[in-house]
C-alpha cells in the first residue's frame, strides 16, 4: 500500500479516499443518467443541435484544466517528504491559484450562458438548450460544493485532504469534458451512426 509510506498520510486517509470514490461514483451516475436522458430526448423531431460553442466555453475549459493542474501541484508539494520551506510557501500559493481559477471557471460559465442567450439559444426554446443550461448548471454546483470543502481544507492544511481535493478536481474536469463533448458533438446523426454500427 503506497499510501502508508506517505509522510502526511493520517490513518483516516484510506477511509476518506474510499468515501470520495463512492461519492464520485454517485456523481458519475448522476451525469450518466443526464447523458442518457439527453440522447433519448434527442430522438424527437423538435431537436435542434446546439451551435458552435462560444469562445467563453473554451476559455472556461482552459480555466478548469489550469485549476486541476494547480491542485495537482499543491498535492504533489504536500505529499513530498520532507516538506521544505519553499514548498511550505508553494502549497498555499498553488491552492489559492486553484481556487481562484475555479471561481473564474464559474464566472466564465455564467458568461458563456449569457453568450448562448445572446445567440438566441434560450433555456425553454429547445430541449438541447434546456439540457445545456441544466447540465452546465449542475456541474457548476458540484464545483461550488468542492470549493466549499476546499475552504475547510485550506484552514487545516492537511496533505491528505489536499490530495483528495486534487483528485476531485481532476474528476470534475473529466465530467466537464465528457459533458462538453456530449452537448456540442453528439448530434442525432452521430447517435444513429453509433447505434447502427452495433447492428
Amino acid at each position, binding site marked *: 500500500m503506497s499510501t502508508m509510506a506517505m509522510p502526511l498520510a493520517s*490513518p483516516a486517509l484510506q*477511509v476518506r479516499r474510499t*468515501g470520495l470514490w463512492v461519492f464520485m*461514483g*454517485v456523481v458519475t451516475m448522476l451525469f450518466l*443518467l443526464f447523458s442518457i*436522458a439527453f440522447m433519448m430526448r434527442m430522438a424527437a423531431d423538435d431537436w435542434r443541435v446546439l451551435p458552435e460553442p462560444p469562445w467563453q466555453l473554451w476559455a472556461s475549459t482552459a480555466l478548469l484544466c489550469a485549476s486541476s493542474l494547480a491542485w495537482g501541484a499543491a498535492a504533489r508539494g504536500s505529499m513530498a517528504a520532507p516538506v521544505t520551506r519553499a514548498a511550505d510557501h508553494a502549497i498555499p500559493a498553488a491552492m489559492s491559484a486553484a481556487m481562484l481559477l475555479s471561481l473564474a471557471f464559474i464566472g466564465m460559465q455564467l458568461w458563456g450562458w449569457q453568450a448562448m442567450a445572446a445567440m438566441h439559444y434560450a*433555456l*425553454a426554446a429547445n430541449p438541447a438548450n*434546456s439540457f445545456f443550461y441544466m447540465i452546465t448548471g449542475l456541474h457548476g454546483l458540484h464545483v461550488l460544493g468542492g470549493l466549499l470543502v476546499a475552504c475547510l481544507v485550506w484552514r487545516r492544511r492537511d496533505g491528505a485532504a489536499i490530495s483528495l481535493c486534487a483528485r476531485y478536481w481532476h474528476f470534475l474536469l473529466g465530467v466537464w469534458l465528457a459533458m462538453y463533448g456530449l452537448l456540442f458533438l453528439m448530434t442525432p446523426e452521430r447517435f444513429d451512426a453509433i447505434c447502427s454500427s452495433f447492428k
Partner: protein
Amino acid sequence: MAYGGAHGEHGQEHGPQSFWTKYVWSQDHKVIAVQYAVTAILVGLVALVLSDLMRLQLGFPGKFEFINANRYYQFMTMHGMIMVIYLLTALFLGGFGNYLIPLMLGARDMVFPFLNMLSYWVYLLAVLILMASFFVPGGPTGAGWTLYPPQAILPGTPGVEWGIVVMLISLVVFIVAATMGGLNYVTTVLQARTRGMTLMRMPLTVWGIFVATILALLAFPALFVSGVMMMLDKTLGTSFFMPAVVSMGQHLGHAGGSPLLFQHLFWFFGHPEVYIVALPAFGIISDLISVHARKCIFGYRMMVWAIVIIGGLSFVVWAHHMYVSGMHPYFGFFFATTTLIIAVPTALKVYNWTLTLWRGDIHLTVPMLFAIGFISTFLIGGLTGLFLGNVSVDIPLSNTYFVVAHFHMVMGVSPVLAVFGGIYHWYPKITGRMFNEAMARFHFWGSFIGAYLIFFPMHYLGVLGMPRRYYAYEGYSFIPASAQALNEYISIVAIIVGVIQLAFVLNMAWSAFYGPKAGPNPWRAASLEWLTPQSPPVHGNWGAELPVVYRGAYDYGKQDGDSDYVPQNVGPEQDDRAGAHHQHSGAGRPVEVPK
C-alpha cells in the same frame, strides 16, 4: 480498519456532556439512528392516517364530505410517497443501518460522524418540506406517487399550484440526505470493520443494508434527474417531458417532450427502490430466524450471493412497470425474462429461511413471530409478482386492485413486519429494557391477521376487474354490488388495524422508561452488537479495546452445558467450552456468557 485504532485512543471520554450535544446535535450513530427511526415512524403514522381516510371514502362513499375527489388523490399520493421513501427507506438505511452497522462490525462509530449528523438534519428538513405541502395553497400534489407527467404538472391535477413543486424540492433534499448517509454506510462497511471481521463473516443484516445502500446511491440519482427536469418543465417552461398539450382550450408552451422518458428515469429509480426496502428486510429476517431458531443460517454464502445478485438484477427490470405504456415486444420479452430470473435468488432465500427453521430449536418470541409472518406475506406477494411479471398477464391486471394487493403484500406489509421484528429484537439493546410481551403479541397478531384480511380480498377484487386509482365506484355495471360490501369490510378492518398500531407506539414509549431491565444479551445472540461492555452501548461502543472476531455470526445449536452458541469474539483456544466459560469482551475484561 485503521480507523478504529486512531479513534481508540479517545476511548469513551470524548462522549458528549450536555443534553443538547448528547441527544440533539449528536454525532453518535446510535442517537442518530433513533432520531431517524422516530422521525420516520411519526411521518409513517401520518401516512397510516391518510390510508384510513382513503378507506373511509372507499368503504362508505360520499358519507364523509370532506374527502372529495381532489383530497382523495392527495391522500393517495402522500400515502404512497411517505410510506416508500420517507418511512421505509429512511427507517431501514437511516435507522437500522445507522444503529447496526458500526455495532455489528465492531466499529466505534460511522467513519464520518459529522456527515452522519448532517444526513439526519437534512432528512428532517425534507420531511418538514413535505409536510408543509399540506398547508400551501392548493394542498399537496395529487399526481400519484409516481408523479407521471404530463398530468402531474397540468391544471386539473390537485396541488398543481404549489404541491408538486414542494414535493419535488422535498425529494431532492431527501436524496441529498440519503447520499450523505449512504456514503457513510458504504465506507464504514468497507473500511471500519474490526480485526477478523471479514466480509464473509458479516451478519446478513449488514450485507442487506450494505447492498441496499449501494442500490440507493446508484438509483436515487435517477429520481434526482427526473425531479430536476420536471421542476424545470413546471417552473421555467422547458419541454423535457411535456408534449404539445391543449389544456382547458389553450395551447401550452410545451412541445415535443416525452412522458415515456420520465417513466424510464422514474422506474430506473423506482424498481431498485423496491429492493432498497427489501434487501435490509431480508437481512434482518435472516438474523432473526437464526437467533430465535438457535440454528446457523442455512447456506450463508448462498444468502450473501443472493443479496448481491438480486441487487444487480434489480437494475435491469425497471420497464416491467411500463408494460401498459407500450413497448416493442422484444423489450417486453427481455424485461419479463429478467423479472422472472429474480425469482430464482429470491426463492433461494425463502428456501434457506425455511431450511434454517427445519429442525431448529424454534422459540416463538415476538421477533420470531414477525419473521415467520414476513416469510408468509413475502411468499404471497412474491407469487403474485410472477403473475404481473408476465406481459400478457400484466396488461389486463395492471390497472386493477390485483396490483394494489401485490405491492402492498410484497413491499408494504412484508418490510413493515421486518421493521417491527427488527425493532422488537434490538429494542432491549437500544433502550436496555424489555418491551411488554403481551402487548407486542397482540400487536403482531392484530397486524399479521389484519394485513391478510385487508389485502387478500383485494386480489379477488382485482381479478374481478375493479380498477385501482378510482375515487368512487358507483354506477359501473361491471362491478357487482357485492364488491362494495367487500370494500366496506376491508375499510372496517383497515381502521381497526390502524388503531392496533397504537399498541406498538405505546409499548415502545412506555417500556423505554418502565420496562423490566433486559440485560446485555436477552436473546443469547452471537453477533457483536450484543457483546458491548455496556448495555445500552455508550458513545464509542467498545470501551478501551475493539473486539476481535474469530467466526461468523451464526454459531448456534451446539449444546455445551448451559450455552448453545459461541459469540463472534470467542477465539479457537477459548472454545474448549469446558468449565466456567469465560471469554473476553470488547472491554478486555472477562464477562460471563449471558444465559
